[in-house]
């Protein structure tokens, strides 16, 4: 009982993910700043931002539905934290696992985007509503390629459990190199999921102020921000578990270091892409995702199916 609570709330649950999420946000911001020839924030800035937001008053618009408005940030945070329990972090085994947990993780990681939609919709501001519409439109563009390119390695491993996938790739080193196209596709989809440039269309500052988050303030905004940070590290952990499955079984300390390095590597790639691109328009984003990214995901699927016929009989 105590162990379960410890796992849920402290390690590797909420507290660890929150701290790791804030640290990842700092890394993201400092890399972004250094690449732009700026100083960047001090190391405690994300935490200070969070404390400041939590200390502030929540303002809920009169027109908004208060229950839905308040529920959305918590739901986003819960979904992101829950997803982490099924992902093998630094061992081959996740905290919990069953056959089919891959689908559950993908589903749980979709929930934050849905809460962005509902939160924006229920705050009834025009800017929020447009942001909400854009978030849900964007969801359809990146989610399909993401699902396909993550299911492809699972097909090769012949299991729908992340822990068993990790065990399979640990048993067959260098098989992960077959999935590099899928890794690229997943990175692009992660940019869309985390609403970062070039896919920060739902919160495009110069067009619709802050999109979904326009009416959010105080604790609720703080929770949303934390949810996005946690989603970033959980998403990166998922990518690391599926596409970079190596470094398991060499002791928990070294394994932990390798896990953190893998996640930060993915965070760095995301920060780099948000430095070198301009924001796309929503129609251009749809076109790009369906014309180029989705076919690439299918290519990955075909590669894995073919390999499955050749390598594993």
């Amino acid at each position, binding site marked *: 009982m105590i162990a379960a609570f410890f796992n849920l709330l402290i390690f590797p649950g909420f507290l660890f993910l929150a701290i790791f999420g804030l640290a990842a946000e700092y890394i993201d911001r400092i890399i972004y700043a250094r690449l732009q020839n700026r100083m960047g924030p001090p190391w405690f800035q994300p935490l200070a931002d969070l404390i400041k937001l939590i200390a502030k008053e929540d303002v809920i618009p009169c027109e908004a539905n208060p229950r839905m408005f308040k529920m959305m940030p918590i739901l986003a945070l819960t979904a992101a934290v829950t997803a982490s329990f099924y992902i093998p972090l630094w061992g081959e085994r996740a905290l919990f696992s069953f056959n089919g947990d891959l689908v559950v993780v993908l589903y749980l990681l979709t929930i934050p985007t849905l809460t962005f939609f509902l939160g924006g919709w229920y705050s009834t501001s025009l800017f929020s509503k447009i942001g909400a519409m854009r978030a849900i439109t964007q969801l359809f563009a990146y989610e399909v390629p993401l699902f396909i390119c993550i299911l492809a390695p699972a097909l090769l491993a012949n299991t729908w459990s992340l822990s068993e996938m990790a065990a399979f790739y640990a048993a067959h080193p260098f098989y992960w190199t077959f999935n590099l196209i899928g890794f690229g596709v997943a990175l692009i989809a992660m940019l869309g999921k985390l609403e970062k440039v070039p896919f920060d269309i739902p919160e*495009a500052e110069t067009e619709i102020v802050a999109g979904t988050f326009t009416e959010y303030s105080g604790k609720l905004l703080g929770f949303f921000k934390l949810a996005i940070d946690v989603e970033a590290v959980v998403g990166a952990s998922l990518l690391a578990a599926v596409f970079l499955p190596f470094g398991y079984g060499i002791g928990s300390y070294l394994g932990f270091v390798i896990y953190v390095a893998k996640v930060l590597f993915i965070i760095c790639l995301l920060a780099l892409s948000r430095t070198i691109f*301009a924001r796309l328009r929503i129609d251009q984003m749809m076109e790009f995702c369906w014309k180029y990214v989705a076919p690439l995901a299918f290519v990955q699927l075909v590669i894995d199916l073919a390999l499955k016929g050749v390598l594993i009989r």
Partner: protein
Amino acid sequence: MHKVIIPIGPQHPALKEPESFRIQLSGERITGFSVKLGYNHRGIEKACEERTYLQDVYLTERICGICSHAHSTAFTQAVEEIAALAVPKRALYIRTLIGELERIHSHLLWLGVAGHEIGFDTLLMYTWRDREVVMDILATTTGNRVNYGINTIGGVRRDISLAQVKDILKAVDILEERTKYYIDISTKETTMIKRLSGVGVLSHKDAVRLGAVGPTGRASGVDRDVRRDDPYAAYGELDFNVITDDHCDVYGRAVVRLKELMESYRLIRQILKNMPEGPIAVKAPRKIPAGEAVSRYEAPRGEDVHYVKSNGTDKPERVKVRAPTLANVQTVAKMLEDGQLADLPIVIAAIDPCFSCTDRLISIKDTKSKKTNILMWDDLHSYSVKWYRDKGIDFTKLNRKLQGKMS
């Protein structure tokens, strides 16, 4: 999806100055557009009539925070024409030099803002860092980063030393290299081209019909530049190309501005090479003889027109300013026809708007009766007295007391 009207402004992150755009949207598509200016009226024209000519030079300089030299030069040129002053050659060259340095800082600033509007903040950070080079040069040659205060009636106030010439040449070399890099980025970076080309199209015919000026017009193939067509200052003796482009879209406007930067570097090198020796100012009379003059100046944003009428005293009878944004703002509605909401910020930014320079008048609209009326100076004065009295604040006693003291 049903139609919605969203307000962009008076306060909005895309806008640097207060102005109001109301956009009718159907989904992401813009179906209607209206502009409302007048949030920043400062009464500068009227204030000019209350001050002496020399004070007005500094006041007109403050019309715009970015093209301040453009306004003060246009004003001094008009006054010098009325007073028939022969401005020394060296002064004209220094004016031209500052004008071109100002163009560089304005265009680099624009490039950064354009980057920000399309979500490309890296470009903003890079261009604004490089803009500091030219800002430093302006600060060392004139004493100020903006509002240089170098013009005076009859010439300029500061000379350029040999050491400064060396500094400027060095800075121009750095800037030229950086600008080549930005031209490279803007013409090759895929996401940037996607966001710029085909956006905010203004055909050549529409540009002529709506009277677009400056880079906005030149990007639609309107081959007009006051520097060449009606040379002022030292431009008549300098060799430069007027950049035009036939893309007719935001991409074209970016290309025109970037190429104009390259021309400015050429111009500055020529100015520093050919700058004649001699005095930098002639003494101007305090009272300007009666007359009137119109002065044109090619500001970074387009043609800037000043009209000055004098009545023989030391204060002008009338000063009228037509800032370039006023000529360009009408084109925005045309550019946004069938546009997307996402393109709105960059299309507005592409005319390089300067709304507070443009505001010349406030008209008061009664939302109930739809009547519009314009307040004159006396009306405005009595309105303000009444407004304060209604609030329980009465300055009458204080006013009498002050007047009693003065007399």
